[in-house]
Structure formats: C-alpha cells, structure tokens
C-alpha cells in the first residue's frame, strides 16, 4: 500500500525542520535551505514514483535535499565548503533514526527558550542565521572579539539544545499523565 498524497504531505511537514536542517548543513544558508525543502515537497507531490512507507519517503527526502543542496553550492561556486558524502549520510541516518516531534512543538520550545535568553543572544542568532552574516561580521557589528563570538555561539547552541530537549521531554511526560 503506497502513501497517499495527504500522507506524504503530513509526513514531510512532521519532518520539515530536520529535512531543512539537513539541507542547511550542506548550503549553510537558512533561506536556501527553506527553498530546498519547498523543492523537495514539490517533487514528492509531482513525481511518478510512489513511496511504500514513511521511512522510504524520508530516505528519499533527505537524499533529494542533499542533492539539491550540492546543486545550489555548484551554482554559487561554493562546493569547497561541502562536507564529505559519508558524513552527510551519517547525519541523515541519525536524523532519520530518532523519533520526530511535530515541527510546531520544536519551534515553540525554541521560542520559549529564547524568550528566557538575553536580548544579545537573540540578536546574535538573528545576525548569524537570518541575516546571513559570518561570525567575523557578527563580531564586528556587536563589538566583540571573534574568539569570544565563537565561544558565545557555541555555549548558546548547547544551552538551547538542552533547553529544547528538556521542554519536549516535559511536554511528553505531561501528555502521558492522567489529569
């Protein structure tokens, strides 16, 4: 029994953050990663092949996102920054082998975590990932040394990772409780 169009869309939306993130690892540009996810969704809905299971669809989606990402790098002559295929496959495999949370839950958790973080942390992330500045350019704009920026970004990602995981775990535990 093949997945219906509705099933394909629902699954892709559940995995949206991970597929976009896999594309981001290749292109390191959040807007390009978003475009790539859109293209993957377009192809999944219009191609003649079918998907027997969610895992087959997701395997295809990750590989297609990677391929689109490499095409994007070629067009922008930035192939040198790309990680080896073996490493990209490892990352995709790990993304695929962990249970997915609804895309909305993760982004809401990040939003909550960022609200509790200092304003400078939010600005730093915006400059780096939305505006697309390098850490060196971010350091100049914020008047901080480059090494200090790397340390701060590193700590920020680590604390956000822990915060998001904590909130998602709490949410799961709460859902399981009898009111």
């Amino acid at each position, binding site marked *: 029994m093949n997945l219906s*169009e509705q099933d394909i*869309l*629902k699954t892709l*939306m*559940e995995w*949206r*953050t991970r597929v*976009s*993130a*896999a594309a*981001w690892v290749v292109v390191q540009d*959040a807007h390009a*990663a*978003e*475009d790539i996810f*859109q293209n993957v969704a*377009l*192809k999944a*809905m219009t*191609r*003649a*092949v*079918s*998907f*027997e299971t969610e*895992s*087959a669809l997701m*395997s*295809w989606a990750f*590989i*297609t996102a990677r*391929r689109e990402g490499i095409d994007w790098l070629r*067009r922008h002559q930035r192939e040198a920054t790309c*990680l*080896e295929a*073996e*490493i990209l*496959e*490892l*990352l995709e495999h*790990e*993304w695929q082998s962990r249970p997915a949370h*609804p*895309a*909305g839950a*993760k*982004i809401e958790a990040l*939003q909550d975590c960022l609200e509790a973080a200092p304003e400078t942390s939010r600005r730093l992330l915006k400059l780096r*990932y939305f505006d697309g500045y*390098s*850490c*060196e350019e971010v350091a100049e704009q914020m008047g901080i040394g480059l*090494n200090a920026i*790397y340390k701060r*970004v*590193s700590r920020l*990602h*680590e604390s*956000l*990772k822990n915060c998001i995981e904590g909130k998602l775990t709490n949410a799961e535990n709460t859902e399981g409780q009898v009111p």
Partner: protein
Amino acid sequence: MNQNDSPHELLLRHLDGRLTQDERWRVAELLRTDPEARAFLRAVAEQAVMVADMERIALGRQEEFHLRPLRSAHQGRKILPVRFRSWRGGVAAAAVVALLAVVASVVAFQLLPSTKPGIVRVSKVTGSSQYFGFKGRAEKALTTGTALGAGDTLETRSCDAWVELKLRDGSTITIAGHSTLRILDAEAGREQFKLLEGSLWGSPAPGPAVAAVLIQTPTVAAEMRGAQFDIQTSSTETMVRINEGSALIRQNLDGSTVEVPKGRQLAASLSRKESLSVTPQPGPISSWACDLRQIPDVILGRWLPPTGNQRARLGANPLLWRISDRDSVMLYAVALTAWKSAERPVLLQSDSKLRFRGRTERAQTVRFGFSTQKMRGVFAGKFEVDVPPASLRPAGETWEVELPLRNFHPLHPQLASSPDGLELTDVYALTIQEDAGLEIHSIELLSGEAAKPAEKH
C-alpha cells in the same frame, strides 16, 4: 585557528568557512568518529532554520515571501507557504494548493476542444499502448493507420513500447515507452501537442521548409521550426535538444523565451530559479553509473524502506501489459531514465557492458533492457536479454550481474540491429507474470576498457 578551540568551536569555524585544509580534515575526522559532535552539528542546523523561520514571522516578512515568486521572473514557484504555525496549518495550506491543482486540471479537461479533426495518423506501433478519445473514453489499442485528432491522448504503457505518428505535412513524431502525449487543437496553422511525460523525437518532412510544430510540456512550450529534435520530460523538468533546424522555447514558469539553434540544448525545471540558458550539446561519455542514492529520475518503481546495508532500494511496480483486446500480461518493472542521471549523452559501444545490482525475493527469470536513440538523432529501438535465476544468486541474496551489450537482442531490428554507436535513453528490469519481489540497487554502464574480463554473477 585558536589551539584552545573546543570541538564545538571548531565546527562553528567550519560553518563560517574559516578553516585551513588540515583543519577541514580534523573536522571531517571529528564528525566521522564522534557522535556528540554530530549531535551538536544537527542541533546547530535545526536551530539555524528555526531561528530563520521565527525571524520571518517576527519581521512580518511572510507576505513578502509569498509574493516573491510573482515579483521576480527568476524566482522559483512555491507550493507551500514559507512558515507554518504547526504542521496542521502546513498540511491544510498545501492541501489547498494541491486541490487548486486538481481543480485546474479538471477545468482544463472540460475546456478540451469539442471538435475532432484528424490531424495525425499512426504510422508505426509496437508494444503496449492505448489511446483515450477526446471525450475521455478509453479506445482500443493503437494500430497502424489509426487516425487521431485534437483531444486524443496516447499512452505507451510497456517498457518496450513506441509509437510513430505521421503529421499531414509528412513530419514524424515518435514517443517511446511510458510516455503520454495529448493532441491539441491546431493553432495558426501549427500542429500542437502536449507531452505530459516521457520521451518524444521529432523529424521534419524532407524537402523545403515545413510548418512549425508546437510541443508543450509541463515546463516549457517549444515551437519547432523545421527541427529534428528530442524532448524528455517529467512533471517538473524538461530537456530539449535540437539536432537540425531551430526552436523557440518559452518557459512556463516566467514566460521568458529563448531561441535554441542546431547543436544546442536547453534544460528547464519548475524548481530551478535561473532564467533559461542554452548550452552546446556536450560530447558523449562511454561509462555511466546510476547510483540510486543520488535519486535518478524513475519512470517506474517504488522506493522501499532502507535496510542496514542498503539505503536506496527501488522495487518493481506492477504494470498491466495489454497484448490484445482480450489478453494481457502482468509485468513487475523498474525503469529509470539516463538523461537526468548523466549530464552528457551516454554512448553505447559494442564492447560495453551493463552491470545491474539488486535482488529478488523469489527465484525467477529477470528481463533486463534499455532504450536507445541515434546520437543526436531519432529513436532507435530497444534491446533486451533474459537472465535465468540460475545465473543470479539465490533468492533473497543481493546479486550483481554484468551483461555484455552484444548479448542483448534488438526488439526493433528495422531501426537498429546493434546498440553500437547509439545513445542510451533509459534502462529497465522486470519480471513477467509473477511478482518475484524484484528490487534494483544500482545500474552502471561499463565501457570496454572498464569492464571486467570475466562475467560476474
């Protein structure tokens, strides 16, 4: 680089593109061996795309992103909104778009012309094919001499099928297996066709200049001016190659047009954001590898769940092959195009071999085949060979089979008796009548020099 950098900082420097070659190797080694480093990189990537999502909302840029495809001819078409508040919202939004597409196709169908002037005649036909009349009724299988008119739709269903149509001015159009062609109303003296999917070759009538023919695909509209050409299309991508004459091509995405002269080609895609560009047809290659992990363009097949050592598995799909009005045979087939997996034409040579890797769940003869066209020319037929189960590994085990091209027999020897010097267009593998659980993992064409001296099973 600072020697006190933690692995996380090293990864951030890598993402900044600030590493030397030695440091890049260190990053590669770190990511290969340290699951914690990979977990950090995955977290950074997820946070980066989510931060961008949140900023789009916060800065009120959602509308701008929705409008972007309309404002710039070079931007791609979006089928999903940029950011959804939850997956339910996203599914709903995408479902609306999908529904609109269905409604549009229904409206388009209802607007099909109500008259049916006969404008083409079937001049040659092989394999399983069918046509649907302009009122949507399934007609009998195609036979030589059948007259077709506006609104009729042809489908070549089996891997070995092809149909040649003769136009009133003597020009010919050929479609190969797994292609769907709709005949449209002639406009301003030009015959019009819509190739919905598959491969089409066109040749002008010999003699002085003939009337233009318009070929539409989901991606482009191509006005052929005395051209000998071939078009390969899927629902999202089209490749046009002009071997004689010229063509004026309009991209459906943004309406831009470009002239394609003899010896040039053009690729267009719904997901490509650049404007149309015409390039010289590249020289051929004599070896080719179709790694399924690179997601080639699949004509027929279904993706199977990955296993521990096999991430890309393409399973055979059932295909009803109508032999006559009463008899039919069930095929279970996998078919792939070569035109999108290779950036250059794939040249077949007498000493080349095709290597297939795959498995069957039950012991059964597997038929391997491929389609060809003349290099920079027209459709040149199909070639097949049967491999008995004894020549494959036991059922359930992965096999690899190398098949010299000289072992393949021509299905249409009147077109070409040997594949030597022809271009590979698509490759297929199938079992007949019984579903043997056939799956294919990779396909390669080995040139004479690259092929191994002994056949391997």
